[in-house]
């Protein structure tokens, strides 16, 4: 099984926000929602010296995505295809992890816009697009649509300093594999929240320290998501039905 992943090199990042805006432009993400962001930390003294650094963030396409566990939509069988033509059938909810790429996706046709997954993500990577007549959850897809056209994700393409490295972590010849296995990267986790994020940060010790201290999630948000309201689910089902008519 593959796992697409991203390595962000904080030594190269200058905090220019090109990634955040290229993503917005590519997918017409309305303000104030975002799939991709840059936050700042510092200048602040750390045990390893003064740091002033950035947290370029996006969906982590986690190994154990808790967002998909809170989706109230009934599982339905779906066929997944790998790049080399392999097929796999799996029963999935409206949001799921692709077994061949490890990318966490949303089926917009089936999403009922309940917002559970938005609440569940400890990284705040999802949003409910209320600008739509029929609000849907949305987030970073690692630009799967672009990958199909052999184009890199929009944020990677625009990164002015080459700080974003994208690839398949299961491919031992890939640059992401090399960096993850040799550079002692930071995964943005904590004792409480440890769900296997697939965005890795490399850089100076002081910068990784500050990013972790400032931005690592501690709240197991998915545990606070209320049990999917039956009423909401039925309402959504009716809405879907009316639409079909």
């Amino acid at each position, binding site marked *: 099984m593959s796992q697409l992943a991203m390595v962000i090199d904080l030594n190269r990042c200058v905090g220019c926000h090109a990634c955040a805006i290229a993503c917005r432009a590519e997918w017409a993400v*309305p*303000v104030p929602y975002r799939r991709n962001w840059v936050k700042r930390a510092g200048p602040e003294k750390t045990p390893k010296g003064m740091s002033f650094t950035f947290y370029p963030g996006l969906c982590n396409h986690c190994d154990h995505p808790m967002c998909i566990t809170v989706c109230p939509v009934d599982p339905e069988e779906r066929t997944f295809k790998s790049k080399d033509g392999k097929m796999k059938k799996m029963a999935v909810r409206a949001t799921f992890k692709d077994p061949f790429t490890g990318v966490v996706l949303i089926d917009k046709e089936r999403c009922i816009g309940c917002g559970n997954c938005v609440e569940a993500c400890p990284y705040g990577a999802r949003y409910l697009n209320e*600008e739509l007549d029929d609000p849907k959850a949305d987030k970073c897809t690692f630009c799967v649509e672009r990958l199909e056209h052999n184009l890199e994700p929009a944020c990677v393409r625009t990164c002015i300093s080459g700080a974003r490295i994208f690839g398949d972590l299961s491919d031992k010849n890939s640059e992401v594999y090399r960096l993850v296995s040799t550079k002692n990267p930071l995964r943005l986790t904590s004792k409480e929240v440890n769900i296997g994020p697939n965005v890795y940060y490399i850089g100076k010790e002081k910068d990784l320290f500050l990013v972790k201290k400032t931005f690592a999630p501690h709240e197991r948000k998915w545990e606070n998501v209320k049990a999917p309201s039956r009423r909401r689910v039925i309402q959504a089902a009716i809405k879907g039905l009316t639409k079909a008519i």
Partner: protein
Amino acid sequence: MNRQPLSHILRLMARGFSYPDKENTSKAFFLAVRQVADSLGIAHDVSAPDQDELKEAYTLLFINEPSGRWAPPFSSVYIGGHGLLMAEGREQAKSFYEEVGLSPATSGEPEDYLPVELDFVAHLVDTESKGLLLRFLKEHLLKWFPCFHRRLKAIGPHPYYMLLADMTSRLLNLIHQEVIDETT
């Protein structure tokens, strides 16, 4: 009443929401606006405004206003949450026009400029394209015109433009109801 006066009223509104020139500030034009307002049962107290006065009012309401108290007459500013010109609203309007093989011939204004959209309604009335008219109103024009209308009201604009907006609002809602009644 035949369909011509109806499309003429729509075109009267379209011209009224265009930048003031000799024609749409003529005595005859104001007379028609007042008479139609009376017929629509909209009370008004608009004496024939001066052309220069209307030019300033129009500019500050619909082109550029330094305090931000203006109402852009473009659907794309209101639809889709982007607040931009040439966004979703324009795309919607354009695809409606294309359905009947039309494209607007404005000089630089985007396709979702209010006068163009009103003119399109007039065209649909003229050609009795009821199904399309209903969809255009329901899925597009009546989605944003009320926002535009509210924004204008909140500003407290020149009474002449408030009157035009009130009339247009009444008219579009009447047509909408009429088409629903006729098609169901």
